[in-house]
């Protein structure tokens, strides 16, 4: 007998899950439909089919500029965040030291800080230090936000690598750096890629903190926000939305699948 559900229960849960997926994806599909709708405002009834918005967005320099700015911010912050995350994860997994639980919780606290509070605090800090606001200040903030995530992705992976491999390398005379480069790094590479992707997506999409510390420049979420409040080019924004969403879904799927394959291969060895 199946203990978790009866036959009917199973059927009902399947229906519930399907409805849930419809609820989850219908809004996204709606954007897809409107991106091909020739009407200038996203409202019913639908009008003709058009590629116009996709064509026009290529000429929208504000939008393309915002996308480029966000790409810079996201790559910068995720690189720093992954580098810091690797250091932290190695220490947390491989080393024993005093106050380890305290340090661990401290490294994870940004997970539970309200973004509005953090954004404002950071703004006040930069003003007190007379640091001009720019994409660098946004990168600094995004590193704080994504660091806990990179640590949380890297720690379990490191835990599954036996320390004896690294010890063997050291016994054979490899330096700490050499051991890291030839043994640890290749083994945690899949997790590093996942961590980078998570940090990248977080930063690329982050509005709240960026809006406080960006100064004059415009990131993609900030452009999007202004379009949502005072729409002037909504159909183009919807078209970009579709592209960005499809791209991010594909990236998530690709990294997740490749990570599972890589880990299965490592596990099989």
């Amino acid at each position: 007998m199946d203990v978790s559900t009866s036959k009917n229960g199973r059927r009902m849960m399947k229906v519930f899950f399907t409805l849930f997926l419809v609820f989850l994806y219908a809004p996204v599909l709606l954007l897809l439909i409107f991106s091909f709708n020739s009407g200038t405002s996203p409202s019913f009834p639908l009008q003709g089919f058009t590629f116009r918005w996709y064509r026009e967005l290529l000429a929208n320099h504000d939008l393309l500029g915002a996308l480029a700015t966000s790409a810079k911010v996201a790559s910068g912050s995720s690189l720093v965040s992954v580098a810091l995350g690797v250091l932290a994860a190695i220490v947390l997994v491989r080393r024993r030291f005093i106050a380890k639980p305290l340090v661990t919780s401290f490294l994870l606290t940004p997970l539970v800080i309200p973004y509005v509070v953090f954004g404002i605090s950071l703004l006040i800090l930069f003003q007190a230090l007379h640091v001009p606001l720019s994409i660098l200040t946004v990168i600094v903030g995004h590193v704080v936000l994504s660091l806990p995530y990179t640590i949380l992705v890297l720690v379990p992976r490191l835990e599954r690598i036996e320390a004896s491999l690294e010890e063997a390398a050291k016994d054979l005379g490899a330096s700490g750096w050499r051991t890291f480069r030839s043994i640890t790094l290749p083994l945690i590479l899949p997790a590093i890629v996942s961590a980078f992707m998570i940090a990248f997506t977080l930063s690329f999409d982050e509005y709240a903190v960026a809006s406080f510390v960006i100064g004059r420049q415009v990131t993609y979420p900030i452009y999007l926000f202004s379009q949502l409040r005072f729409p002037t080019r909504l159909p183009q924004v919807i078209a970009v939305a579709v592209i960005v969403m499809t791209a991010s879904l594909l990236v998530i799927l690709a990294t997740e699948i490749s990570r599972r394959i890589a880990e299965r291969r490592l596990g099989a060895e």
Partner: protein
Amino acid sequence: MAVQAPSAPTVEAVEGVRVVAGRRRGLVTLGLLSPPVSWLVLFFLVPVAIVGAYSVGALQFFPGDLQLSFANWLHFFHGSIYLSLFWKSVRMSLTVSVAAVVLAYPIAYFLALVVRKRKYVLLLVTIAPFLTSYLLRILAWKVILGDEGLVNSFFYWLHLRSTGHPIPWLLYSQFTVMVVLAYAWIPFVALPMFVALENLDQALLEGASDLGATRWQTFWRITFPLSVPGVIAAFVFVFIPTIGEFVTPLLVGGTKGFMYGNAIADLFGPGFDWNTGAVLALFLLLVTGGLTVLFARFLQWRSVTAD
């Protein structure tokens, strides 16, 4: 290793090597740990401390009248509009968290205990929307709930409402803010509960059924109690970010959906009252921090990564 037998080292020498190696190891640990820790101290702890200083007047936007006072705090707790705004946000955020947890629990149960094939693919499908742009999902809801949106057009079409007279509370209301927040957080909420249910010892369930328990009895007396840590973690993971929310109310809340987070943003922006703003910000931080500490033992951080 060494081919020639080395001369036997003295006890002192071994001890000495050990102490030096230990000290060196300690230094390396410190060296590895200091970049991430100092980044967070400098750009996270210090800024928050500065906000704390503002809240008690130890810092002022206009220098000159520096004096330590808790007047801002007293004012906040006695009859300011902000405290009632805080409770309104708590109510909204509680509703959202409870709704999200209740809706996501069956999903987590289904994925963890009912599905046999392609469990992780389905889990990924459930979570994927959470990883796509938040603002774009808000945009989608504006299209659904807008004056000419999906819902209103449907009512016009059925002639249940005359064209040009949209349902007033559909957009720019507390209701809208709560719908959008619940929609946004449900996928994420399913995760910790999935992990809790997935780690359940199946033998317990089989044992209960062998001893004659019905499925409902098994669920209420074994499965559910054992998944409570996951439920609490899920609840806290939604409640904390939504209570400080200010972007969603700005976009779909109108004046009625104004939340505590908006008041903070306004005081530091157009309102230009940093001392009061700092009190509000710090109070929110104390509340969320308190909740985190209170529920710390239920928050399995690992579950965030679903590994």
